[in-house]
């Protein structure tokens, strides 16, 4: 990705940006379901009043707003049975008002201009960070840390979710094990309307598998463009001690994973992770063949009772399982090149690596 392409991307995203507005959750009131939507084809039928103006919202938005106030589907069904739809409406508004008093929440409402419907709602901790601000910030970040843009990914909903990959102009390559040469000083910036998050991006040179390591300090995430937040996040790539610590931690995790067999339970949790990312069944079975290996145990006489998948060895080491996931995330043709699931899955794979291992590595003098 050249600098020109980066600038063009910024312009394109900004030009196609869906309109949005930040409001206090307390100012959004549920009116009910619209039955006649006149001549306009709307995407949703939920009518809300936002600061006195009636708007339509999709079911996704209505559910998300309920989730913020803790109004579950079961509660809705119960109240609907007892007092009807009016009761649900009143209770929904009561909960929204009550929770806003206890915990004032700001949200960004994202509208679809053709259908004139609210299609997304994003919680905003401090301030709204627009796409223009994000690209402006990314330019400053790269400028001060000697980075250049290398790739980008966008979410399914262009209103929120851009991941920008940046590579260093002075690459730092380290090997945490023989044959594991890895480029360690690349970064990604992840943006949505409510925040910008910085993570480190590792790329194994041998297979070009990407690995996203979240930098676990408060400065790595900003929710407002104030001086302190900006200065903090801008300086992270220059904080050698922090980066050394985080790299050492990652190396330790990797070495443990290389020396440790995965458990069936870990295979299962990876297959569930793939399911959440809507990875096809065939690919998923190749990466984490949980059912197949479970059957192997069952067919070998291990009964269902007393069988503990956490204590049963899978056929592969944790590192191989991890690499299969990052290999899929980096190289699959099932997803578009700029699909942000690639980076998200790489991040979750590292989260998996970070977990305590089910099967510990023991010194075994008898193993041949």
């Amino acid at each position, binding site marked *: 990705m050249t600098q020109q392409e980066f600038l063009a991307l910024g312009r394109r995203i900004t030009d196609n940006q869906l309109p949005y507005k930040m409001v206090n959750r307390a100012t959004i009131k549920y009116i009910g379901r619209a039955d006649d939507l006149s001549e306009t084809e709307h995407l949703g039928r939920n009518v809300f009043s936002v600061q006195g103006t009636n708007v339509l919202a999709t079911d996704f938005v209505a559910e998300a707003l309920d989730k913020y106030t803790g109004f579950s589907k079961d509660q809705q069904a119960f109240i609907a049975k007892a007092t009807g739809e009016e009761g649900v409406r009143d209770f929904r508004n009561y909960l929204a008002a009550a929770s806003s008093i206890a915990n004032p929440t700001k949200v960004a409402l994202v509208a679809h201009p053709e259908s004139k419907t609210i299609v997304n709602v994003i919680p905003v901790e401090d301030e709204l*960070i627009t796409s223009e601000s994000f690209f402006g910030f990314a330019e400053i970040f790269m400028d001060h840390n000697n980075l250049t843009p290398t790739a980008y990914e966008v979410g399914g909903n262009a209103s929120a979710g851009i991941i920008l990959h940046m590579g260093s102009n002075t690459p730092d390559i380290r090997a945490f094990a023989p044959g594991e040469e890895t480029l360690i000083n690349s970064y990604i910036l992840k943006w949505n309307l409510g925040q910008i998050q910085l993570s480190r991006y590792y790329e194994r040179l041998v297979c070009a598998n990407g690995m996203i390591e979240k930098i676990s300090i408060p400065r790595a995430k900003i929710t407002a463009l104030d001086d302190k937040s900006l200065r903090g996040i801008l300086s992270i790539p220059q904080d050698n001690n922090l980066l050394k610590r985080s790299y050492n931690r990652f190396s330790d995790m990797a070495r443990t994973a290389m020396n440790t067999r995965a458990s069936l339970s870990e295979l299962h949790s990876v297959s569930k992770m793939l399911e959440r990312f809507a990875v096809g069944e065939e690919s998923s079975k190749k990466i984490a063949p949980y059912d197949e290996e479970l059957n192997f145990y069952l067919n070998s006489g291990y009964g269902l009772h007393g069988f503990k998948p956490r204590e049963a060895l899978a056929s592969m080491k944790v590192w191989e399982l991890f690499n299969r996931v990052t290999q899929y995330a980096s190289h699959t043709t099932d997803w578009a090149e700029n699909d942000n699931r690639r980076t998200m899955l790489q991040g979750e794979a590292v989260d998996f690596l970070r977990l305590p291992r089910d099967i510990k590595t023991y010194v075994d003098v008898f193993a041949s």
Partner: protein
Amino acid sequence: MGNVSDKIVRMREIRFDPALFENYMTGTVLDELLCSYKGLPKGVNYMVIGDPGVGKTTIILDLLSNIRKQHPGVKVLFVSVEMNEIDLAIYVQRFPKFQDIDILFVESNFDDNVDSHNLQTLTEILQQGWDVVAIDSFYELQGIIKEEESITQKKAESMLFSLIKQQNKADNNAQVNTTFLTIQQVTKTGAFIGSNRLKHSITAMMELRLENPKNIYSERYALFSKHRRGDVGVRLYYDLSVTGDVFYNEDRFSQDRQIRQLQSEAGKSMRKYADKFDILFENIKIKKP
């Protein structure tokens, strides 16, 4: 009594020498902070305030030396009211370039039998015509004038400021528009000492601050809290531990300026999308359930 209408002028009728808008350069990144079109402007009054020990005198002497170096024909004067020759000798040891600056030492006379008038001396010297004059400090000088002339603090401030204004407008033998850099003391809480009139009359106020005011070893920065010629709030970090020159952190300065720009654009961009949102729902008709 003259015709009051004569007092009204139009800017197009006032003629200025274009050279008046050619600034003095220091050759450092400080030029970008001093004025949006770089350098120290002519005929202006910049006040410099800051916590004790933050380096006000050093910064000003360094600035004067750098201007002399960049513009060898320019006449600069340092009016030292707080420090005597011996105090300044220490500065010269660390910053040898300060030794060639013209200095006027103004001292209180503690002998009641001697009638001294530093205001008169200063007036006569300024009348020669200087391009840049630094006063360290305004408050001390004001106090001496008050004592010597047996006038009030307010009157002393007026007399001093009237002298400065006169020099700003080139009312001197060399007909130069003198620029004044006046160091002003601050209270223990870091607030400006001086009247509101003084604060409103100056062109700009540069503050020298410690990142952590409770720690003299913390990082130091300069920023303008009032500026008719440039940006307010942009920090320029500096370091006095290097012998010879004040070190200005150029990279950090450029980052700070970019941050300001980003913050200013962010507000505009937020309003733009909120307006689009409001327009979208302005005329929509939803049949209520």
